[in-house]
């Protein structure tokens, strides 16, 4: 079976004024369709470069990236992205923030004016699945941080992307809200079945959500280990309190400790 996302022996060097920054070094990871993968590593290990590479914003210097059997040569258009900062547009209502990608990406772009009502209905339904029923006509600044992040997830998913790229999406939230949003993401993933690459430095988050965890070394980022997470789906949040869960987190933690020392 061929992989849906195949990052094959990729090296990336940013050329700066004072020498290059070696971000990724011969990095290889592949994902099956519908897989939930997490990428963890010490800070500054090139995790964010990975986001840019996979979405086609930056070409690799060596190696290649394939999505759905096709080599990535430019913006992939089939990926949704969400970041630590929700980055909502303050002059747009929640629903219009969610609809933003449809105003850009084809084929929705050319249909958008004609079928606006249908799209709005879809957006409202999506907002309802993340628990934002009745918030569609509010402005982002009327929402709490956790709610804004939910809107950001909806914006990333509105065009039904096959691949969802998340760059530390929950890092700025408090612990309770974070766990709440883990469950929101888990439910969305189980319901819709997209492929996810979640970049995070939270080992519990990675262990709870992912099928596989890929650990990277400090810069230049190399793949250090891949860990399968055996817990059955659907996973209730109580999994986090099982000894087996804690063992995995400890194992990952010890490994990161080694990696950081170099």
């Amino acid at each position, binding site marked *: 079976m061929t992989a849906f996302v195949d990052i094959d022996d990729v090296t990336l060097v940013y050329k700066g004024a004072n020498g290059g920054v070696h971000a990724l070094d011969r990095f290889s990871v592949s994902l099956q369709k519908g897989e939930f993968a997490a990428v963890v590593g010490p800070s500054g290990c090139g995790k964010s470069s990975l986001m840019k590479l996979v979405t086609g914003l930056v070409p690799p210097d060596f190696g290649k990236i394939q999505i759905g059997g096709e080599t990535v040569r*430019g913006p992939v*258009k089939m990926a949704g992205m969400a970041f630590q900062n929700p980055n909502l547009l*303050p*002059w747009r209502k929640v629903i219009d923030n969610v609809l*933003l990608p449809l105003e850009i990406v084809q084929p929705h772009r050319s249909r958008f004016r004609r079928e606006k009502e249908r799209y709005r209905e879809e957006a409202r339904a999506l907002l309802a699945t993340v628990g934002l029923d009745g918030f569609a006509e509010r*402005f*982002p*600044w009327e929402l709490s941080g956790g709610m804004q992040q939910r809107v950001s997830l909806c914006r990333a998913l509105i065009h039904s992307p096959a691949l969802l790229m998340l760059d530390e999406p929950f890092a700025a939230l408090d612990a309770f809200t974070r766990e709440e949003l883990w469950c929101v993401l888990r439910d969305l993933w189980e319901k819709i079945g997209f492929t996810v690459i979640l970049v995070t430095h939270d080992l519990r988050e990675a262990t709870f959500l992912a099928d596989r965890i890929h650990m990277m070394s400090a810069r230049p980022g190399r793949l250090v280990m891949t860990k399968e997470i055996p817990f059955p789906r659907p996973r209730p949040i109580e999994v986090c309190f099982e000894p087996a869960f804690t063992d995995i987190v400890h194992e990952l933690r010890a490994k990161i400790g080694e990696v950081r020392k170099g």
Partner: protein
Amino acid sequence: MSTNAMERLSPWLFTLGMFLIWEIVCRAFKVDPFILPAPSQIFVAMGQYWWPLAKNSFVTLWTTLAGFALAVAFGIVLGIVVGWSRAIYRGLYPVMIGFNSVPKVAVVPILVIWFGIGEIPAILTAFLISFFPIVVNVATGLSTIEPELEDVLRALGAKKLDIMLKIGIPRTQPYLFGSLKVAITLAFVGTVVSETIAANAGLGFLMVQAGSNFQMPLVFAGLLLLAAEGIVMYAIFAYVESYFVGWAFRSSMSAGG
């Protein structure tokens, strides 16, 4: 009295208080009206010369607004061009800084040689002095788009034009309206500078004439009217700002956490 009513009244009270202190100081120290006329004398002069004052105020007002309108149109276009790409930004910035550093008083004689004495040099001076903050603010609004937001859209295949239309230009509006308040007051400075050097109408011209006739209360009456015009125009643009980009004020009070 409620704090709200107090806040609304306080600008009037402070202005009134300033005039009162001014009047008292002038009387208590018997200040020569040729050095500093008391407000009462200024208001008498205003009543006495109301027609030339009104006529010349109007000239100053319309030349300022004409120059300001040019500055807004040109400033927005140039701001978008400058904010569009880093290369243009870096290339044009030193030129603009240099241009802005030139005192506009020094340019007026050139304008007079080109266009003759009259309203056109005043309009152009108002334009030259007030377009700079507009350009800088529009360009800043465009060039400070959050890179991650740009990534989200670029990954979807958005072109530079899409990003500008969907994000850049709306997000520039608070910067633009903020700069209009600064630019309109600068435009008055430009007009009056030009009028005092070479004009045959306008408050600047009137003040020079009155000064050379030693009519100091009339000179000060011109100054007060200038200040009043500036305040009124500033207030109008502050209102326009809060009307169009209210979201920018509210979003800073976001619910958070």
